[in-house]
C-alpha cells in the first residue's frame, strides 16, 4: 500500500427507516450494526470499510429519512451527511413492497444531483404479496442503476458491489413539475450564485419549502450577493403558496412516480390472510394485546431474566465459579504476595478491584443484562414493539409522552444509559425531558431489577408493594411533569412493520454486540468505582461520606449499614442493589426495611454513566435539575413509604 494514501471514496446509504439499510451496511462491510424490525434504530452514523476490486471504500450508514426535507432529529443527522460529504455513490435502499411511496425520495436524490444507486430490497416478501417488478424497465426510466435484492440472504450483494465499483456519474434529466411550480423554481434558481453540494434546482425547491438548514447555508453563501432580493422573492412565493405548497410538491412527485411505475409493477391479488397477520391483529387489539403483554413480561422478564438470568446463572457464576474456584486462589495469592496493606485492599479487600469490581461485573451484572438483551433483541426482531407502542399510546399521553416512548422505556429495563441515548428519537424536547427524567427515576435497569427481584421474591408482599409503589410514582410524576412542563402534547404516528420470524443468527449477533458494548462501557466504570471506593476507605473519606449520609438513611427507618449500598448506588445503580443483596444475606434487614430500601434505591439517582449521558443529551442544567429532583423525591418517597408501612403494619 502506498504511504500517502488519500481518504477512500465514500458510499452513503440512505432510505426510509426499516428498509434494511443496516443489513446492506453489514453485508458490504462485514461489520455489525444493530439491525432490527423497528423504525429508527440507527440514531448515529455508522462507518465501515469495504474492498471492491483493489479499491477501498468508506461506507456510511445514516439514520432513516423519509424525504430530503428533514423533520426529526434523525432525519436532520442523515441529511447533514448528504450536505457535507462528497460521496462516490449514494445508495438509496427501498422496500419493494412500498416502492410507490418510497420512490419519491429517489426522485429527490436524483434531483439533488447526487450519484444515486437504487436498491430495491425485500423482493421476497413483495413476491409473496403477489407483486411482480420489472426493474430493468425502471432502470431505463430512472436513468440510474437499479438493483433488486434480498439483502438478508445476500441476494443482490454482488450486483451492488459491481454497481458501486462501476459507478460513473451521468448528467440527469430533471423531472418536470407543473408549469407554475417550475416558474417559481426558476425564479429562485436564477438568484442563487454560490456553489452548493446539492443541485441548484434542489436547493431552490428546499428554499421555497422554507427548510431552515438550507436557508442558513444560503444566507452564508449569498451574503452581499443579492441575498435580500432572494429572501424577498422566497417570502413572496411562500406566502402565495402558503395553503398547499408541500402538498402540491408531494403530489407532483407522486404523479411522476406513478408514471415511472406504470408497467414496472404488476399486482396480483392475494386473498388468504397469513397467520402473521392474525397474530399482528391480536397484538394490536387491547382485549387480546393486554394478555399477550402480560405473557411477554411474565415469561420474558420475570421467568427468563429474573428466574434464569438473575437466579440460575448468577448462582452458578457467583456461587460456584467465583466462590469455589476463582476467589480462594486470588485471595490466597494476594495474602501471600501483596504484603502492603493498601495494595491488598486495592485488589482483594472489601472494595477491591477484583473482589468488588470484576466479581460484580462478571458474576452479577453480565448474566442479567445478557438475558435481558436476548429477550429484547428477540422481541425487537419480531416487530412487537411498534404494536406495543400503539397499545400504550393513550396511557402514555397522560404522562406527556406518546406511544413512541415505549422503546426507550422498555430498553431502560435493560440499561437506562442506553435508553437515555435512545430518547433522542422522540420528537419534542418536552417528551425527551420527561422520558429522561422517568428513566432516571422510576425505571430500574436489568441488573438492578434482577437483584431486586431476587431480593424480594422471597417476600411476595414486599414485591407487590415495590411494584405498585414504583408504578404509582412513574404515573404520578409523569402526569405532573406533563402538566408543569410547557409545550404541546405530542402527536403519535408510527409505521407498523410486518411481523417477522426473528432470525436466530441476527438475534444472537445483536445480543452479543449489545452485551459487548455494555461490558466495554461498564467494566472501566466498575473498576473506576472500585478504586474510588478503595481510596475513600483508605483515606477515611468514605467513612465521612457514609456518616454524613447516615442520618438521612436513618430518617427513613433503615439501619446505617444500608448507607454503603446507597453510596455504591451512585456509582452504579445495580452496584447499590448488589450491596443490598449482601446485607440481606447477612439478615440485617426486616421485610419493611428491605422494601423501603429497595424502593428508595430504585428511585435514587441514576448511575454515573447514565448521568454523564444525561448531561450530554439534555445539557448540564436539565441533567442537574433532574438529579437533584430525583434524589429528593427518592428519599421523601422512602420516608413516606416507611411511615405508611409502619402505620398499616402490612409487612410486619
Amino acid at each position: 500500500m502506498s504511504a500517502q494514501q488519500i481518504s477512500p471514496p465514500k458510499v452513503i446509504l440512505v432510505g426510509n427507516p426499516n428498509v434494511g439499510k443496516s443489513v446492506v451496511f453489514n453485508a458490504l462491510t462485514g461489520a455489525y450494526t444493530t439491525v432490527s424490525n423497528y423504525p429508527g434504530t440507527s440514531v448515529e452514523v455508522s462507518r465501515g470499510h469495504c474492498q471492491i476490486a483493489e479499491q477501498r471504500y468508506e461506507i456510511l450508514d445514516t439514520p432513516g429519512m423519509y424525504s430530503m426535507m428533514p423533520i426529526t432529529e434523525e432525519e436532520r443527522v442523515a441529511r447533514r451527511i448528504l450536505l457535507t460529504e462528497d460521496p462516490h455513490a449514494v445508495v438509496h435502499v427501498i422496500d419493494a413492497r412500498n416502492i410507490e411511496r418510497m420512490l419519491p425520495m429517489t426522485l429527490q436524490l436524483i434531483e439533488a444531483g447526487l450519484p444515486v444507486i437504487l436498491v430495491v430490497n425485500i423482493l421476497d416478501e413483495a413476491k409473496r404479496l403477489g407483486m411482480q417488478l420489472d426493474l430493468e424497465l425502471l432502470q431505463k426510466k430512472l436513468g440510474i442503476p437499479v438493483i433488486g435484492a434480498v439483502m438478508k440472504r445476500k441476494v443482490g450483494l454482488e450486483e451492488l458491489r459491481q454497481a458501486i465499483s462501476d459507478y460513473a456519474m451521468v448528467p440527469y434529466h430533471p423531472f418536470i413539475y407543473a408549469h407554475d411550480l417550475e416558474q417559481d423554481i426558476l425564479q429562485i434558481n436564477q438568484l442563487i450564485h454560490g456553489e452548493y453540494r446539492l443541485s441548484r434546482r434542489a436547493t431552490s425547491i428546499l428554499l421555497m419549502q422554507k427548510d431552515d438548514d438550507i436557508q442558513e447555508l444560503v444566507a452564508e453563501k449569498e451574503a452581499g450577493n443579492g441575498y435580500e432580493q432572494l429572501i424577498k422573492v422566497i417570502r413572496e412565493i411562500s406566502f402565495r403558496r402558503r395553503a398547499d405548497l408541500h402538498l402540491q410538491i408531494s403530489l407532483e412527485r407522486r404523479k411522476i412516480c406513478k408514471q415511472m411505475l406504470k408497467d414496472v409493477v404488476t399486482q396480483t391479488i392475494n386473498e388468504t390472510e397469513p397467520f402473521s397477520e392474525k397474530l399482528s391483529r391480536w397484538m394490536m387489539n387491547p382485549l387480546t394485546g393486554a394478555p399477550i403483554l402480560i405473557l411477554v413480561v411474565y415469561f420474558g422478564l420475570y421467568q427468563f431474566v429474573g428466574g434464569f438470568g438473575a437466579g440460575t446463572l448468577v448462582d452458578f457464576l457467583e456461587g460456584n465459579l467465583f466462590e469455589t474456584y476463582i476467589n480462594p486462589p486470588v485471595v490466597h495469592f494476594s495474602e501471600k504476595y501483596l504484603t502492603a496493606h493498601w495494595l491488598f485492599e486495592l485488589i482483594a479487600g472489601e472494595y477491591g478491584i477484583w473482589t468488588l469490581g470484576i466479581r460484580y461485573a462478571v458474576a452479577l451484572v453480565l448474566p442479567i443484562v445478557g438475558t435481558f438483551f436476548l429477550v429484547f433483541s428477540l422481541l425487537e426482531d419480531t416487530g412487537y414493539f411498534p404494536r406495543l407502542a400503539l397499545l400504550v399510546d393513550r396511557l402514555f399521553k397522560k404522562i406527556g409522552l406518546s406511544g413512541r416512548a415505549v422503546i426507550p422505556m422498555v430498553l431502560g429495563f435493560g440499561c437506562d444509559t442506553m435508553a437515555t441515548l435512545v430518547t433522542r428519537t422522540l420528537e419534542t424536547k418536552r417528551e425527551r425531558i420527561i422520558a429522561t427524567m422517568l428513566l432516571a427515576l422510576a425505571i430500574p435497569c436489568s441488573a438492578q431489577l434482577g437483584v431486586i427481584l431476587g431480593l424480594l421474591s422471597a417476600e411476595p408482599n414486599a414485591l407487590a408493594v415495590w411494584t405498585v409503589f414504583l408504578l404509582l410514582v412513574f404515573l404520578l410524576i409523569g402526569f405532573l411533569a406533563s402538566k408543569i412542563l410547557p409545550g404541546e402534547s405530542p402527536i403519535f404516528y408510527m409505521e407498523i412493520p410486518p411481523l417477522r420470524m426473528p432470525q436466530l443468527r441476527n438475534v444472537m449477533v445483536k445480543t452479543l454486540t449489545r452485551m459487548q458494548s455494555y461490558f466495554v462501557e461498564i467494566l472501566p466504570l466498575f473498576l473506576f468505582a472500585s478504586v474510588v471506593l478503595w481510596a475513600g476507605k483508605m483515606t477515611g473519606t468514605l467513612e465521612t461520606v457514609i456518616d454524613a449520609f447516615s442520618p438521612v438513611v436513618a430518617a427513613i427507618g433503615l439501619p446505617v449499614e444500608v448507607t454503603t449500598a446507597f453510596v455504591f448506588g451512585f456509582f452504579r445503580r445495580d452496584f447499590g442493589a448488589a450491596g443490598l443483596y449482601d446485607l440481606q444475606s447477612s439478615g440485617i434487614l426486616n421485610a419493611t426495611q428491605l422494601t423501603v430500601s429497595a424502593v428508595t434505591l430504585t428511585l435514587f439517582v441514576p448511575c454515573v454513566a447514565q448521568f454523564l449521558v444525561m448531561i450530554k443529551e439534555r445539557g448540564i442544567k436539565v441533567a442537574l435539575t433532574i438529579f437533584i429532583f430525583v434524589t429528593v423525591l427518592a428519599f421523601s418517597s422512602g420516608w413516606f413509604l416507611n411511615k405508611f408501612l409502619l402505620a398499616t403494619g402490612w409487612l410486619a
Partner: protein
Amino acid sequence: MMERLSEEAEEILESLWVMTVEGDNVGCLLTSLKVENDSPQLLELVQRAYVELRGDRVHLRKEGRPEAQMTVRRHRLAERLTMDILGIAGDEGNDQACEFEHLLRQGVDTKLCTLLNHPTTCPHGNPIPPGECCIVARQQGEPGIVALTELKSGESGEIAYLAASDDKKMQKLMSMGVLPGSQVTLMQKFPSYIFKVGHSQFAVDDMLAREIHIRRPVK
C-alpha cells in the same frame, strides 16, 4: 316589497323566539322585552301581524315565526363568525355579533353559512335554525367526505385531503405516502387508529386521524 324591519324590531323577534319557542314561556311580558305598548318597533310587528298584544304580554304569531327564526339564525351565525373566525371573545364578541347580524341579509347569511360549513350550534351551544342552504346540503346525501375517525373498522376510502393544522405533521404524513388520492382501509379504531395504505400499516392517534379526510366510495 315590504320595507325592512328595524333593528329594534328584530331584537324583539329574537327575544320572543328564545323565550317562547326555545323556552317554555307563554308570551312575553312587555317589561322583559323592555318596550312600551306603544313603542314604534312593537307597532311595526303588530302591523305585519307577526305578533299579537294581549294585556301586558306579547305573543309570537304563526305568521311571525319564519322571520323570528331567521333573525335568530343570523344572530347565531354572526356569533360563529366573530368568535370562531375573527377570534373576538367574551362580551366584545357578543356586541360585535349584534352589530354583524343586521348585515347578514339578502343572501349574505347563506354565503356565511356555507363558508362556515353549515354549523348547527352557536358558540354557546344553542341550535342554529337551518336555512335553505343547510337543507339543500343535507339532501345531497350524507357528506361524502369524512374524517378518518368517522369510518368503521374495515371500511375503505380514498384520502380526499389532509387538514393542515400542523405543517410538520402533515409533511410527515405526506412523506410516509399518506397523500390525497391514496386508497386507505381503516383496520382498527381503539386504542389507536390503524390504517393501511398500499402494503403498509400505520398507527396514528385521534388528533392526527381527525385531520385525515376520507372520501367514501359511491355505493
